[in-house]
């Protein structure tokens, strides 16, 4: 026994000698990320496979010793099955994808002309124009959503204006529908679209455009056959940057979308806070993560393909 202890102690002191300052430096952020990011993800997967229980914590454990010698592993796939059979969840997935997709396309249609105009503006004011795009992003997210509540609500600015101008008699229902949720998302994430588009468009060599004009191309044709194809990396990056946060968005559909715009984010929230069903909330989160990872991988692939062509 004595020898084993000695070996352990010498081995340990040997190890302590090898560990230098830089190892501690590595250990701190590694440890943080492991404990507060990787562990929660593993716990999420684990709870998504448990059964709902009215207790604290409200889920069953997966591994159990039964009568002292039998190891029982119970994995419940029911939470996932429900998500693909219950109409409410399927409609939730569809709503999320529809809202995120529509907002991404609208952001692209609005962001592209803006990014192009900024890229073609004189170099002196370009910095200021770009900063003006980011400035609203630095104001609180909730305030930006609130601004649209103020504009769109039945007693809000737009309805008031229309009534004053005698264009309508009664206030229009502008808020509490999926269109309002889309407007909110476009407003909140437009800077994410403009920036990658700008950096792609800025790199374009404009002598190409001039050559196209000289050869008799119309401005519109030159734009669509030169600027748009060369801006494709920016289009993919910007679309991913808008689509990814939009699909998991909770605050905007909750405040602007009304009761019937049930996105995945809201379903997770309702399952957790409303139904106290941790396993269902966890499995919904896993599905949401898959929805998020998919466009990122797609955009990454496209970029890599593009780079390999360039090489």
């Amino acid at each position, binding site marked *: 026994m004595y020898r084993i202890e000695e070996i352990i102690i010498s081995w340990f002191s040997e190890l302590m000698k090898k560990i230098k*300052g830089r190892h501690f*430096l*590595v250990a701190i*952020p*590694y440890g*943080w*990320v*492991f404990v*507060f*990011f*990787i562990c*929660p*993800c593993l*716990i*999420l997967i684990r*709870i998504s496979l448990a059964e709902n229980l009215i207790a604290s*914590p409200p889920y069953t454990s997966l591994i159990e010793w039964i009568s002292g010698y039998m190891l029982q592993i119970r994995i419940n796939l029911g939470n996932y099955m429900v998500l693909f059979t219950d109409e409410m969840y399927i409609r939730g997935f569809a709503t999320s994808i529809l809202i995120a997709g529509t907002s991404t396309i609208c952001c692209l249609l*609005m962001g592209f*002309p*803006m990014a*192009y*105009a*900024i890229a073609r503006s004189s170099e002196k004011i370009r*910095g200021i124009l770009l*900063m003006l795009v980011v*400035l*609203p992003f*630095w*104001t*609180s*997210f*909730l*305030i930006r959503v*609130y*601004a*649209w*509540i*103020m*504009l769109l*609500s039945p*007693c*809000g600015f737009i309805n*008031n204006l229309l009534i004053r101008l005698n264009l309508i008699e009664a206030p229009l229902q502008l808020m509490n529908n999926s269109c309002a949720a889309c407007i909110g998302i476009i*407003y909140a994430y437009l800077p994410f679209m403009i920036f990658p588009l700008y950096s792609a468009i800025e790199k374009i060599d404009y002598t190409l455009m001039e050559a196209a004009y000289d050869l008799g191309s119309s*401005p519109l044709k030159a734009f669509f056959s030169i600027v748009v194809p060369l801006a494709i990396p920016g289009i993919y990056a910007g679309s991913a940057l808008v689509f*990814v*946060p939009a699909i*998991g968005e*909770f*605050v905007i559909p*909750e*405040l602007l979308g009304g009761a019937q715009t049930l996105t995945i*984010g809201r379903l*997770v929230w309702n399952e957790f806070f409303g139904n106290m069903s941790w396993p269902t*909330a*966890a499995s919904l*989160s896993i599905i*949401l*993560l898959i929805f*998020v990872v998919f466009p990122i991988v797609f955009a990454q692939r496209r970029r890599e393909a593009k780079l390999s062509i360039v090489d």
Partner: protein
Amino acid sequence: MRFKWSNVVLFFGYLFLYFPLICIVIYSFNESRFVSTWTGFSFKWYKALISDPIILRATVTSLKVAGVSATASVILGTMAAIIIARWGAFPGNTLFLGAITAPLVMPEVVMGLSLLMLFVGMESFFGWPSRSGNITVIIAHITLTLSYVTLLVQARLQDLDNSIEEAALDLGASPLKVFFVITLPMIAPAIVLGWLLAFVLSLDDVVIASFVAGPGSTTLPMIVFSSLRFGISPEINALATILMTILSIAVIMSAVFIYKDGNIKNM
């Protein structure tokens, strides 16, 4: 001809971006509770805001949480950035890089939910962190903002010429001294920007805080969110105007700071 066209695009683009915010500022000075009528200029809602104890307490909580988490996030993020930018391949490097940048794309509900599940599990195992204090929100916000700070500092480090650091090491300076005398002053703009970004992100977050906050740590966005569920409120107009003023000044100042430093292209 094309020049005019681009001006029109920019005009409508910036109108879309700024009109809603300008509306808030204007109506925060309206005496009436309703948007429909302008009854006169007043500071009534600002006074109501300042004398609201719930909002005041939540503001203090939010500022505390944001300050602590931004500072911790900058320290951790700088460490992570140095590891990524300078020391290259470590065991588990890819996983580390992935895990550190993943919160950028992680939906807030998923992050809040998974962190809460972790905290509940940890509390029942170790009795820590207790959800009665601010610590859970602080930890969650550090995890959220760490990725932004790391990426900012790491981008700056990669642009720097590390032969200066190597020269100092060759001349016998200790690694710590090299860091504080050479590296830190050079990455200072990125660190300041990272701190500011982390502070704003923390001050802005409502979803993650709603999941992990205990009864005593209600943050300002949580109060604003619950009052927004009931529609327009003139006090929120006043609050929004104050926040926007502070944030715009901070952003413009930091932009000037970075610009003066001659590093605007690197940001």
